[in-house]
């Protein structure tokens, strides 16, 4: 029954804090993704839990037992690092058998477990190949099988799909989740890919500068992001710069540049305050004709468009110089819109979120992703 708990954990490298006073709790059987940009501390966090590096401050508990001084091999964890180094001179099956055979099991038990893990990762048919004969995707699955074969019930995965082609990555993430469920594992999976995190995880923890900025189910992080950074990193959005011109009980009027005013349901900011409006691209509507009954209809010109499969994406240059990206589901994309055409962007008041304008500038908050 592995649970994991980190209490006020700090890890320094020289003067910088890779992990900065971090608290995190992972429940038994949970699949948690640590999501963050390059340099946010994801790998360090995983290494701390695995025990291959030690915290400077704070406590790490596995199964309610303090493990700060417990070496990696005694932590009952399967750690699959990004550079998973298979033994090149050993066959696939022997690579996988490495863990169980060092545990003093009988030969037939070892063989049985190893084969089972290879079947699970759909590689049984390559059991007698050498790593060098396999594709990158297969090698990654061998590393995973080796991790699983160790029998540990806590699985730590560092960008397990990182080295793979995009298409293969999409296919394997579903398999990864199934594997964790079939084996009743508690899994911590580190990734920079928000879509991957949303698909595999029960819960996501967004990491930035060594601290957890938000944690929750994929749907809650996506629908209630706490900051501009998280909105941008998890899903992306249109961000517009403005200030509060009026407000009342129902909402507020925010003025964008070019004196364009937008009605917003939120009213938590004072008149005169500089704010950032955020609205998801798929909630930013694009229409050909102005609908007189609606508010927040902004005139613009289609600057670019791209077809993304599920969605058609339109980039609209508004009259005031701001740009808005609108994503229309392919199945609903009935209107023919072309580049250079004049259109209207429709932003519903309840879909717009307001954030205080970041002190270091909006660009800085977005770039950090």
């Amino acid at each position: 029954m592995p649970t994991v708990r980190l209490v006020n954990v700090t890890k320094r490298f020289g003067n910088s804090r890779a992990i900065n006073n971090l608290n995190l709790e992972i429940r038994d059987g949970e699949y948690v993704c640590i999501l963050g940009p390059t340099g946010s501390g994801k790998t360090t966090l995983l290494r701390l839990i695995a025990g291959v590096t030690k915290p400077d401050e704070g406590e790490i508990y596995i199964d309610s037992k303090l493990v700060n001084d417990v070496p990696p091999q005694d932590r009952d964890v399967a750690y699959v690092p990004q550079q998973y180094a298979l033994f090149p001179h050993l066959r696939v099956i022997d690579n996988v058998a490495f863990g169980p055979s060092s545990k003093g099991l009988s030969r037939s038990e070892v063989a049985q477990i190893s084969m089972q893990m290879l079947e699970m990762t759909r590689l049984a048919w390559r059991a007698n190949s050498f790593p060098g004969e396999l594709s990158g995707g297969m090698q990654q699955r061998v590393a995973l099988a080796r991790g699983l074969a160790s029998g540990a019930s806590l699985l730590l995965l560092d960008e397990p799909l990182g080295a793979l082609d995009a298409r293969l990555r999409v296919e394997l993430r579903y398999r990864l989740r199934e594997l964790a469920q079939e084996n009743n594992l508690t899994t911590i999976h580190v990734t920079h890919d928000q879509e991957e995190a949303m698909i595999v995880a029960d819960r996501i923890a967004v990491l930035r500068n060594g601290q957890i900025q938000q944690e929750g189910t994929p749907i809650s992080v996506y629908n209630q992001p706490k900051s501009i950074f998280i909105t941008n990193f998890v899903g992306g959005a249109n961000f517009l710069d403005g200030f509060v011109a009026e407000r009342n009980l129902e909402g507020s009027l925010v003025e964008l540049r070019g004196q364009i005013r937008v009605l917003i349901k939120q009213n938590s900011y004072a008149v005169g305050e500089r704010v950032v409006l955020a609205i998801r691209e798929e909630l930013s509507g694009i229409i050909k004709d102005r609908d007189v009954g609606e508010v927040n209809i902004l005139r613009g010109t289609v600057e670019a468009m791209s077809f993304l499969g599920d969605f058609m994406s339109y980039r609209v240059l508004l009259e005031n110089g701001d740009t808005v990206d609108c994503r229309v589901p392919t199945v609903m994309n009935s209107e023919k819109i072309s580049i250079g055409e004049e259109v209207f962007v429709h932003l519903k008041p309840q879909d717009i979120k307001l954030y205080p304008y970041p002190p270091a500038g909006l660009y800085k908050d977005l770039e950090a992703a």
Partner: protein
Amino acid sequence: MPSVRLVNLTKTYREVVAAENINLEVKDKEYVSIIGPSGCGKTTLIKCIAGLIEPSEGEIYIDEKLVNNVPIQDRAIGYVFQEIALFPHMNVYDNVSYGPTVKGWNPARTRSLAEEMLNMVALRDRMRDYPDELSGGARQKTAVARALSSGSLLLLLDEPLGALDAKVRAVLRHELRRMVKDLGLTAIHVTHDQEEAMAISDRIVVMKAGKIIEVGTPLELYLHPSNLFTANFVGETNFLIGESVKSTGKESTIKVKGKILRSLRRPSLEKREIVAAIRPEFVITERHLKKTMWKGKIENKVFVGSIVRYQVLMDTGESIVAKYPAVTNRRFDVGDEVNLIFPPQHVLLYPYPEAGLEKEISIE
């Protein structure tokens, strides 16, 4: 006016054929991506165009001029690799102006060109910084600016965004396309990421095992892929295996495990065994149980931000993926019994492949 034309190009390494009898035409000012799984030959192809690899057979024309024997520095191309090698001891400006400087262009022209390119990639205020002070995205943009400042009108990009985080990639691909279009360049871009290719390209070349298997616009490849491999590689697809029953002028009828599937496509005549393909976003699921043909149970539901993805186990045993935009009100829960509708206009038909479906669509 750089156009690129490859005629019967083949590259072999000992017994291995990396690229086989490739014919491809890239028009002036076109943005073309080459996609395909690892080892399909896409990098070999772009390296042949760049002049880094000599083809074993065939001709390469740039601007209608045969360039097989023209060395890389005389081909007038800008080249960006995945592992960008910026000069670490030079700041951003010096990196970007390196090409024009060594070519001995006059300093005023060099300066204005380099600054224009830095403006273009929004790095003008970072021009005194050194590469190791930049984020991965900014380094990649510097590499692009350097390639652009060579003044060449043909840009070759080999996984230019490969080393970056998913989020940064999505932002940079827009910028890359915008720059190429603003400057009127011709671009050939190799990527393993089919979504990137769709977002960025005018046309996409799909390669598999050293061969081009299909060329088309993103829309064509996604909505009407000409073969099963493309259907699977470019976006997710459901496949159902059945038998062709009859085909009239307008509609074909396929039998899948005794159930009827209709398509507005015509199956090829020589085979009765058919693979029907339908994109998850075109599958309609209905909660109100009617006596329609297809039934199933929601097995799995995943929220992917703007999309909700359902996995439905049909009573025929097949598993079907259905996707809905999260903005719609259609909501189902795991365990719900549903009907499935496959709209005939979105059901594509292919002859069952000789080697089997698995093998045909395999990406490893």
